[in-house]
């Protein structure tokens, strides 16, 4: 099992557990944290935008071109931070277990 610590838009702090290998987006979506994940993980809807806490930013793989383009498009609507990521592009596994994220505002 892998863990994620999440702060919802309402400021609630929760710790979720999931099967290792799950996309972070699905874990957050299925726990009703405010993540919609409408497009299913194709970087085409931007509804799984999260802020990864500073100490985790460098530990994640680089953003893909598609992810970067979507985040750029989101910038017209919400604040972007260095830790801005699409949760659908992060796999929750042994390497990422314990990650802390905050759900970004809806666009």
């Amino acid at each position, binding site marked *: 099992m892998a863990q994620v610590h999440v702060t919802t838009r309402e400021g609630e702090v929760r710790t979720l557990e999931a099967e290792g290998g799950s996309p972070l987006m699905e874990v957050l979506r299925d726990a009703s944290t405010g993540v919609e994940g409408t497009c299913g993980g*194709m*970087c*085409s*809807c931007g509804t799984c935008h999260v802020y990864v806490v500073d100490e985790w930013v460098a530990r994640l793989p680089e953003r893909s071109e598609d992810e970067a*383009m979507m985040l750029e*498009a989101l910038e017209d609507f919400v604040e972007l931070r260095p830790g801005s990521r699409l949760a659908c592009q992060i796999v929750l596994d042994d390497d990422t277990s314990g990650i802390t994220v905050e759900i970004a505002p809806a666009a």
Partner: protein
Amino acid sequence: MGAINLQQLLESQQLERCPFPIPAGWFHVDFSENLAKEEIRNVYIFGQEWVLFRSESGQVGMTDPYCPHLGAHIGHGGKVVGENIRCPFHHWEYDTEGWCKKIPYGKVAPPITKKQAILRTLPVVEKYGMIWAWYHPKCEAPSWELPYIPAIEDESGWTGDRKGSWTAHTAIQEIAENGVDFAHLKFLHGAEAIPPAEVNFDGHIIDINMANGYIVGRGYGPGLNIFEFTQNGVSATMISYTQPIDVDKSQMNMSFRHKDYPEGSQELMIAKKIVDHMIGEAEGEESAGFESVDFIVWNHKKYRPNPLLCDGDGPVLQFRKWFKQFYVADEDTLAKI
């Protein structure tokens, strides 16, 4: 190589009528006048349905029917909006090149829509008063351009509005192969003799000269052939543009043109007779045009990948090798051709 496979000759059940995929190339879709501005029409060609439309400014688009969003058939209930075609389901709009130009409710357009076209469209040009589409099974860009045809493109000096369209229940390669099968002209068509002929291949072009200039033909890929027939110094031109409707069904289309000879002249009479002869059986001609005799063979034959040929047969195998360049398929499929 080298030996005759007797088993193959004796047993025909494993032979197929049409083992060929749809070839790549430029193909006639329709006449330009048949598609009005803001019109949408579903057409079946290249083994599938397509949505043909003309934008407000007159651009023609030919798209895959199914919306990349949720799969609605754009040709049933879709609408032309300015330069775009609009899907009826959620009003996503696409231009003639398949770029998604509008999603009327999403705040953030999917990034891929900025990077590339997402609806499959075929490259289209309007030429000779017709709509032509480039078909390539892997969506590659056109590798050659349609030629200039004086007989149909020059504003003056040419005339003739005869056209024909026939359905053949076979693949386009089988139809074209008759162009290099000179022996059949004597036996199937009843020509006086097997005409002497010369064939040359150059890239996507095939040149045929039959009976020392009586018929001079040039083919441009699988979808366009131009034949000039000359008798007593008078010429008539047949422009042939066959469509691969399906792997085993082809629509043969032809336009017949000749020089604008004066009314009542001997030349005009000869030109008209040549045209009659191209299509069917002309009065006083000893051999039959294709309409009356070729279909019975095309509609029932099987394709022999390893035919038993004899001396006197035309360059059938060279033709097949040339035609193979238009197939984009896996090795097993190509091996059957």
